[in-house]
């Protein structure tokens, strides 16, 4: 609420997570959450408003009596703020509207908890206490109508599980996204172009190649070819876990682009079995100069550049003037 951009962020998140109206409707259907549930929950609203403060007090005294949760509330101002937010959340449970804004709100709760790094088991544990506190009061409030009490409790459980599902999913989604972003960041910096010798570059590729990365690799390679006036490049793909036709296509295009700049690319590290599978699928690898290992690649490159590669012993004899 303090941050006016917050609602927009959650809206975007909702889209990213694929939580369309249809998807939410499917979830409600799976929970068998229907019009009667909405009615029952709405009918609970007055009672809920009466005992809201009591529930919140019990809830926070529980949280404050455990070390694990206490540490999140060391600042009294924060405590006051979350209590107020909690009360609002509590009243929303029975307000009778469980549409897109409601879902968005649940996501916001998930985001808030993930941001403070609240462990998921504490979230679930706290929710359990919360639910039991509410249950006692609900049973008490409906003591003259046990049937209504059970039915309402059932409706509440459905809604609560919908909520918990949304909140925990947000958690997971954000964690997964963080991991993905980190992987991307690592990949960005992990495609070095190494000048091995004059006119010879080594491009070791580690990790999966996808279209944006392929583009980045090609650009980086072409720039390096120009900067080093390279004639031969060894592109080592030993560390690439998947090579299928789409990846092969990227490799072929990189090779062709380098050729236009006057450099020959040798691809090393393509396993014979993968190469065979690609050929059977119909990938034409004839434009690509492939060799088995990185070592083979460097040797082939040196030959292309006219370096004489021979064993130290041989060199010793042929270059020994005293020998003649």
């Amino acid at each position, binding site marked *: 609420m303090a941050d006016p951009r917050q609602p927009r962020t959650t809206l975007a998140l909702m889209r990213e997570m*694929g939580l369309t109206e249809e998807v939410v409707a499917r979830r409600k259907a799976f929970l068998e959450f229907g019009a009667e549930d909405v009615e029952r929950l709405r009918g609970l609203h007055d009672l809920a408003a009466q005992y809201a403060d009591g529930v919140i007090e019990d809830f926070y005294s529980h949280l404050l009596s455990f070390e694990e949760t206490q540490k999140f509330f060391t600042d009294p101002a924060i405590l006051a703020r979350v209590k107020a937010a909690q009360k609002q959340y509590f009243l929303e449970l029975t307000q009778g509207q469980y549409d897109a804004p409601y879902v968005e709100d649940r996501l916001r709760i998930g985001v808030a908890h993930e941001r403070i790094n609240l462990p998921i088991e504490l979230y679930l544990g706290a929710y359990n206490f919360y639910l039991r506190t509410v249950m006692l009061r609900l049973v008490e409030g409906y003591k003259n109508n046990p049937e209504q009490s059970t039915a309402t409790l059932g409706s509440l459980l459905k809604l609560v599980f919908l909520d918990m599902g949304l909140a925990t999913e947000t958690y997971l989604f954000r964690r997964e996204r963080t991991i993905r972003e980190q992987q991307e960041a690592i990949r960005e910096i992990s495609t070095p172009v190494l000048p091995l010798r004059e006119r010879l570059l080594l491009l070791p590729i580690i990790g*999966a190649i996808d279209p944006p990365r392929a583009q980045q690799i090609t650009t980086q390679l072409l720039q390096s070819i120009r900067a080093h006036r390279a004639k031969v490049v060894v592109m080592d793909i030993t560390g690439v876990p998947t090579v*299928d*036709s789409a990846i*092969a296509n990227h490799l072929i295009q990189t090779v062709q682009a380098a050729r236009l700049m006057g450099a020959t690319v040798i691809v090393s590290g393509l396993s014979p*079995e*993968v190469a065979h599978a690609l050929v059977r*699928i*119909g990938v*034409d690898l004839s434009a690509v100069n492939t060799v088995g290992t990185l070592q083979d690649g460097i040797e082939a490159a040196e030959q292309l550049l006219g370096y004489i590669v021979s064993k130290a012993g041989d060199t010793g004899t042929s270059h020994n003037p005293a020998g003649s």
Partner: protein
Amino acid sequence: MDSRSWTSTCSGGTHVVGESRVPIKQGGDIITARQQGRALAAQLGFSSADQTLIATAISEMARNILVYAKVGEIIVRPEHNGKAGITIIAHDAGPGIPDINRAMQNGYSTSGSLGVGLPGTKRIMDEFLIVSEVGKGTTVTMKKWKT
């Protein structure tokens, strides 16, 4: 009955090879699906060359899902229909393929790629069935038998 067969499976110590499902939502999932397929093929006793063919077939279908349908699922499961084999199902609820005959031709690609994924995968598998409906999605079911 159920509990008995469950107990015997566990106490017998033989690990029953089952089905696995891999949601395809991002690039890394292709690798996961490929690994699952390769692992199952290895457990079923496929040769190393066949394991690679199976893994490559999975890559092709998983990448098609990612590129053309954005999300979908790969299911790999053992087949014990008299002979041993592996079944792979690639399913998505994406845009579907308007002209399957054309998509099955070598060199036909709407993404500027090589256009060999579908016809090539059909070549390396023993059975290949593609069902696609525009606006509904695409399902490829393919099998490879142990030789």
